[in-house]
């Protein structure tokens, strides 16, 4: 379980998060949504200790963020940061192998290679294995980055807007893979999304953030409605139920 207790955060004096307390239990797909500047990415970065905690406490299972060793935490929790641009000229296989770093510490063994092969197969990257990242399309590159986070072999997987720059086919494919990882491998996935419809279609639970606070929290069917869009997103869009799932008419 990821447990967040009384976390507040400010950047250059501007408050971003206000006293957030939230439990994200093991398993399933949790989507973090909210308008721009709501603090979703900051919260994700704090959980993944990419940003130093200012007040409050966060723990991942028994590991306390900020106290646990980076390497140990890296064996429990992986993150794909928002719009990670890789300027280095690396091959897809090399990039995905980097995800194994917390385990092999620079000396990959047979087990690491097996896991890499499995990750490449899962994300349909085998034919691209020896291609340089700068010779890939945006969607392929995004897939390679998610494969790298997956190869890290952690129980928790945090993804910050992985659907950026992806077309509809690539988006649905990636969300389907994440769904499958949660169901078959028992992974706990926390994902920041912009598109409420993707969140409603693929997530078990949606946490809505607004102005640095948790505005709503629950199953998609319970919380996605006209009122949420009006109050939190400040837009008058209609929500209809299709096959029991809420769909925002844009």
């Amino acid at each position: 379980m990821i447990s967040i207790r009384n976390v507040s955060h400010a950047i250059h004096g501007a408050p971003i998060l206000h006293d957030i307390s939230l439990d994200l239990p093991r398993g399933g797909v949790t989507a973090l949504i909210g308008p721009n500047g709501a603090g979703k990415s900051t919260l994700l970065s704090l959980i993944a200790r990419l940003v130093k905690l200012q007040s409050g406490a966060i723990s991942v299972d028994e590991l306390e963020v900020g106290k646990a060793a980076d390497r140990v935490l890296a064996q429990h929790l992986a993150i794909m940061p928002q719009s990670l641009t890789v300027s280095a000229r690396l091959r897809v296989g090399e990039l995905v192998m980097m995800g194994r770093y917390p385990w092999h510490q620079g000396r990959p063994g047979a087990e690491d290679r097996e896991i890499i092969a499995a990750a490449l197969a899962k994300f349909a990257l085998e034919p691209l294995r020896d291609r340089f990242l700068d010779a890939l399309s945006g969607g392929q590159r995004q897939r390679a980055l998610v494969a790298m986070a997956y190869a890290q072999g952690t129980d928790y997987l945090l993804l910050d807007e992985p659907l950026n720059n992806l077309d509809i086919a690539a988006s649905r494919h990636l969300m389907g893979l994440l769904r499958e990882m949660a169901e078959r491998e028992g992974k706990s996935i926390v994902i920041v999304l912009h598109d409420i419809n993707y969140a409603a279609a693929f997530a078990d639970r949606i946490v809505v953030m607004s102005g640095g606070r948790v505005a709503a929290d629950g199953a998609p069917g319970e919380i996605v409605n006209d009122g949420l869009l009006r109050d939190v997103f400040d837009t008058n869009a209609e929500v209809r139920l299709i096959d029991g799932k809420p769909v925002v008419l844009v």
Partner: protein
Amino acid sequence: MPVAVILLALAALASLSLFVGAIDMSPADLWRDPEALRLMLVSRLPRTLAAMLAGASLAVTGQIMQVLARNRFVEPMTAGAGQSAALGILAATLFVPGAPVWIKMLIAAGATLIGSVGLLLMIRRLPPTQPLLVPLVALVYGGVIGAAVTFVAYQGDMLQFVQIWLTGELSGVLQGRYELLWIAGGVALGTWFIADRVTVLALGDAAGRALGVNVAAVTAAGLAAISLVTALTVVTLGAISFIGLVVPNLVSRLIGDNLRAGLPLTASLGALLVLGADMLGRVVRMPYEIPASAMTGVIGAALFLALILREPKHG
């Protein structure tokens, strides 16, 4: 295999280098003439080794610098590290003239470290959307420190010495006067142990931390390696620029940025370039010599222009 080809070329060039110089000498002379053997051991062999050691270590640390700076267009020698090394050795010569060489060398390395940290602190604040700002700022920074070197040297009446440190050349390399470069070679070889972690840092500090890499320690180790190699080269041969810039870019183009896998290629290509530059400098105006740094400047600039002009859109 590019490495095998380069190593073969390097071996051929090194053997040739032993017999190229102001004094004519053939392999057969080594058996007949004890004076020829002495020339070989005291001058030609040290000179050849010095060129290869300097070239290999400058290329390897240039690549580390480019990862730490997240920019392909900087190299320690022109970006303040080379000038800081000259400033350090100048200060050592002025204030502790009687100190042994290795003390002066450590002072130079310390000054280089401060200079490199200063550069990193400055360029990390530059907007990442403007990649060309980094080499520009680095050049200005190097120029400012270089100006300080000239000013101090002028005041201390030491301008001739400064010229020696700022112009790398190998005609003065003799047995007993180049051995510090073995340490530079050792440092470059030692970076093999942090190479994989440096490659992870190429994804950014955040990605490095997410993968459990001790970002501060790896950055510090990389900077220490850069400073030692730069200072050792400046103290022994003088500043040799362009190697740390051109070789990493060439290697990146050939096999990519996986530092550990690329290390043998980077090192041998650097050795090949400096040795080739020194040999050219020996023969174009025989019996006079052109400094190796002038030759690397010419060769490096040509290579770099060719690289830039062939740069694909997503470089």
